[in-house]
Every structure is written in C-alpha cells, then in structure tokens.
C-alpha cells in the first residue's frame, strides 16, 4: 500500500498538465456533438489522451466511424512498446497484466521507469492517479461546456490544431524528427484537399513513420529509447 501511494503521489505534479488537457478534450468532444455520457465513456474505456482528442475533433468533422477507429489504433500502437518493456521488467500474473494493460499511458510508463519502481503497486498508483485526474477533469470540462452558449462562434475548433502542436513540438528532438513532421504536415495538408480527414491521417501517419524508420536506418541512438 505504501508503494501504491508513492506511485499515486509521483503523478500529482503532472495533474497540472492532465487537468487542462482533459477539460479541453471534453469541451471539444461536447462541441462536436458527443453527449456527457459518451464523452465520459471514452475517458473510461479508451483512456488515452491524444487519441481521444483526435477522435473528438474527427467526430466534429463528420469523419466515418471506421476512420476514427483506425486513427485511434495508429495513435495508440506505441503503447505496445511500453507494455513490452514493463512486462520484461515486472513479474506480473495474468490478472495483473489484464488490469495494467488498460491503464498503461505515456505518463504512467514514464514515471514508473524514471522512479525505477518496477513493481505492480507503484505502477498501479501512477496509473490510477492518472485515471482519476483524467476522468474528473473530463467531467469538469463536460459540465463547463454546457455553460458555453455557442462553441462555434468562440472558435473552439481551433483548440484542436493548437493542442496537437503542443503535443508534437516536445517530441522533436532531432533534425530527422523535425523533417518527418514537416514532410507529414505538408503531405497531410495536400492530401486533405482530396481525401477524407480520416484517410489523410492514416495514410500520412503510416507513410511518415515508414519514412522516419527508413531515414534513421543507420542511426543507433533511437533503439534504447522507445
């Protein structure tokens, strides 16, 4: 129990980032026509911030269900590397794996590794600390959005590209990262003139990642940092 609370507290400094993002997600989702219940359900059963944000925006653009589901899959594929790493480092039973899998996020993974606390109670502390703050801020954002009379007139949709700029820019650590981002950005803008938003994202996401993987084929540094 002590380890659990250590993990729980280790995430609290990150609440400052989680809460506004969760509220912004909920405001965007509600202005895209999702109900309070649907907005909350997504935070409970998907529980993956950037993919929820992208889905909230895509619902508003009238994207097809299939393209929303596939985009979610592509954005969240990276969690595979996190649980692969956690599974090697922690000795978990199958029931623990089934629970931990749902709660694995960038933050829980990063904080657990950074604190070198590779055990189930600490990890669950970080994970539930995030689950709680994410879901409470989703509810707060949902309720707040009911006080906003006309989200369209306010230009709430602008929060979508801005949030993804704020998620993207800290990822750009090398010239090749920046290069892939620029090529993908230009390609997506061009494709979006001809294709649906969902197809644009899927095609650019896969092609951009392949370009990056090919471009860095002679680099060794990336292999240690998933």
């Amino acid at each position, binding site marked *: 129990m002590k380890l659990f609370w250590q993990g729980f507290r280790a995430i609290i400094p990150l609440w400052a980032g989680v809460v506004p993002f969760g509220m912004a997600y909920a405001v965007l989702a509600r202005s895209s026509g999702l109900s309070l219940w649907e907005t909350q359900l997504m935070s409970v059963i998907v529980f993956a911030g950037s993919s929820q944000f992208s889905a909230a925006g895509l619902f508003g653009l009238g994207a097809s269900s299939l393209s929303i589901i596939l985009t979610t899959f592509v954005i969240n594929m990276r969690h595979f590397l996190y649980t692969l790493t956690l599974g090697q480092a922690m000795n978990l039973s199958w029931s623990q794996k089934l629970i931990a899998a749902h709660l694995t996020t960038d933050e829980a993974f990063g904080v657990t590794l950074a604190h070198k606390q590779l055990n189930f109670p600490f990890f669950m502390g970080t994970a539930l600390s995030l689950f709680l703050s994410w879901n409470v801020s989703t509810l707060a954002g949902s309720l707040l959005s009911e006080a906003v009379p006309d989200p369209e007139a306010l230009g709430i949709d602008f929060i979508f*590209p801005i949030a993804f700029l704020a998620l993207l820019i800290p990822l750009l650590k090398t010239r090749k990262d920046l290069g892939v981002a620029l090529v*993908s950005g230009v390609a997506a803008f061009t494709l979006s003139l001809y294709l649906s938003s969902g197809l644009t994202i899927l095609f650019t996401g896969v092609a*951009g990642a392949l370009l990056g993987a090919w471009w860095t084929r002679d680099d060794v540094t990336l292999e240690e940092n998933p």
Partner: protein
Amino acid sequence: MSITLTLIFMALVTYGPRLAGFALSGRSVSSFWRRFLHFVPIAVFAALITPALPGNSGEVEVRLVAALIASLVIWYRRSLWLGIAVGMGAFWLLRGFF
C-alpha cells in the same frame, strides 16, 4: 455505426496493443519497427495539425499567427496547458483586432 459502438471499438483497438506488449514481453522487436513506432506520433500529430489549421470560418491569417505564437511558447516552455492557453488567448485577441 452509433457513437457508443464506435467508442467500444476504439477501446478494443487501444487495449489490443497494450495487452499484446505484456503477452509478448521477453521477445524483442526489430530495430526497424521500434524506429517506426517512434515516428508514428510525430507523423500522425503533424497530419492532424495542418489540415485543421486554416479552419472554415474565414479566419486563416488570425489562426496562423496565433498558431505561430503558440508554437514559440511551446518550443521554449514545453508546456501543454500553457501552449493551449496562449494559442487560444492569442486567437481571441487577434480576431478582436481584425
């Protein structure tokens, strides 16, 4: 497809890779796929940004300038909430001027 059903499928395709990592832990992933997964969020986030940047309310210039200001703040401060706050704040201020 109803929204609720879409959400359930989103949950399944998110849970799948998370569980697969635990199920396969002990195996190694080739360097190519590790690098591929490193670039997925970079490519996808960039692809989410540019088509949505101009918007369809005829405020292209204001949105581009606000996005540029937000980008500079994000670059130097590395803060998600500050980036969103500055971006939206700049947008609301600028559209008041034009």
